[in-house]
């Protein structure tokens, strides 16, 4: 009985993989159906997520065992309000557009602006020359930084070299490793050696 989920996962995984590689009418149709099912499953997962969110925040409010429970009240009130607006007026509606344009977008913009400040403090920490690695990073950062300003033309060329040669080479090396790691992980899942979904 416990092998059934593994067998289903292996079967579906193989079909979707074959569908990715080959263009065959039957395989395409089956693969398409599985992908459609994924969307339905993901939608159910979002419902589970919503239930989890409500339960976690309700529990925080009731138990009062974690700091800043006031935020949980705000989260729940906001979630209920937006949920009701969506339910009553639908997604592409004037009230929903107002919520997004006047609440969500400004909040997102403000939050995105924080990145600049966080970047400054993180850069300060990363660029302190403590050892050879950090010294190399500091020198490269300085070259790229100065190369941005059109003061010294030679620096612009050095900047181009830093970005196009060592930086790109490093990035490609990492991407190569990531590709191999992704293949290995996918293979372990497809052949059922890695089963996060069952015992």
């Amino acid at each position, binding site marked *: 009985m416990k092998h059934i989920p593994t067998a289903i996962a292996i079967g579906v995984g193989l079909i979707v993989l074959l569908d990715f590689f080959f263009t065959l009418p039957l395989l395409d149709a089956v693969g398409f159906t599985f992908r459609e099912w994924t969307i339905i499953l993901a939608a159910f*997962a979002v419902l589970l997520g919503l239930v989890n969110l409500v339960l976690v925040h309700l529990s925080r409010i009731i138990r009062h065992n974690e700091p800043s429970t006031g935020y949980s009240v705000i989260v729940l009130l906001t979630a209920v309000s937006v949920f009701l607006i969506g339910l009553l007026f639908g997604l592409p509606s004037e009230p929903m557009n107002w919520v997004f344009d006047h609440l969500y977008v400004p909040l997102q913009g403000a939050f995105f602006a924080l990145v600049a400040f966080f970047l400054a*403090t993180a850069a300060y920490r990363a660029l302190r020359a403590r050892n050879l690695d950090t010294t190399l990073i500091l020198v490269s950062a300085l070259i790229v930084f100065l190369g941005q300003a059109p003061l010294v033309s030679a620096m612009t060329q050095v900047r181009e070299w830093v970005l196009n040669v060592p930086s790109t080479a490093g990035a490609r090396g*990492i991407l190569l490793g990531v590709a191999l790691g992704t293949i290995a992980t996918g*293979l372990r899942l497809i052949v059922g050696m890695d089963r996060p979904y069952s015992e």
Partner: protein
Amino acid sequence: MVNALSSLLQSTIEPEQARMLALFLFFLPVFFFAYWAVKRGARFSLRPIDAYTALKGLLARAAEAGQPVHLSLGIAGIGDQATADTTAGLNVLEYLAERAAISANPPLVTIANATALPVAQDLLRRAYRRQGYSEEYDPGRVRFVAPSDPTLGSSAVPSPSVYANSPQDAFAYAAGTMQLLSKQKVTANVMLGQFGDEFLLLGETGARRDLTQIGGTSVVSVLPFVYATMSHPLIGEDIYAGGAYLSDKPAHLSSLLAQDILRWVLVAGMGVAIVLRTLGLV
């Protein structure tokens, strides 16, 4: 016959897919050979990865302090292109859950993609059951903070229609998790999975609290943030090695060995190609 086979192949497989299939088929025997060798008792030394060594030491400290470890599984889920990254995070969760179940100090897990929620909760539940403490399992230790979608960059303007077609960016997730990291008593912050710019926000919040931070992602553009904020960074494919370093499972060890073999083959291939090209032979 050969022509017929060739035309059949051309009609059923695109050139790009053919290249990927070739790499996959090349990987397959290497992987199974490595698996066979590991199963037969072959052992090979793993280069020390500082982050996994630190992770092993974290749990004792967490149990001593009575404070949990926070684990973020990133903004991707199960079934999308970054499933491998989420799986890497789940491997670490499995390790943390197994040990935390004994010390009654489960990790606090935050996620931004609902598809990872049931899997993460199930991993935690099974860890408790295996240790015989099923009644201690609390599903609220895995928290869905806010939806996100890595396919949407920060340039995408959120709107109801965007939301209807797919969830949105991860700043809402970052806001919720930053609040947790700055107010909640946690021993360490572990971040493993797919991340975007929000990695900096979360990592920097943890760094300001002087938390032990272990984190990594496969996204190249986020790696500077990883290096800048994490006390124990995992760069690129290091995140996929967690299973081999933490659980010692043959499948994980063999896939790591296969990756290394294939990497050397590819490097050698590139070297040969460079020489041939330089000599004008190709």
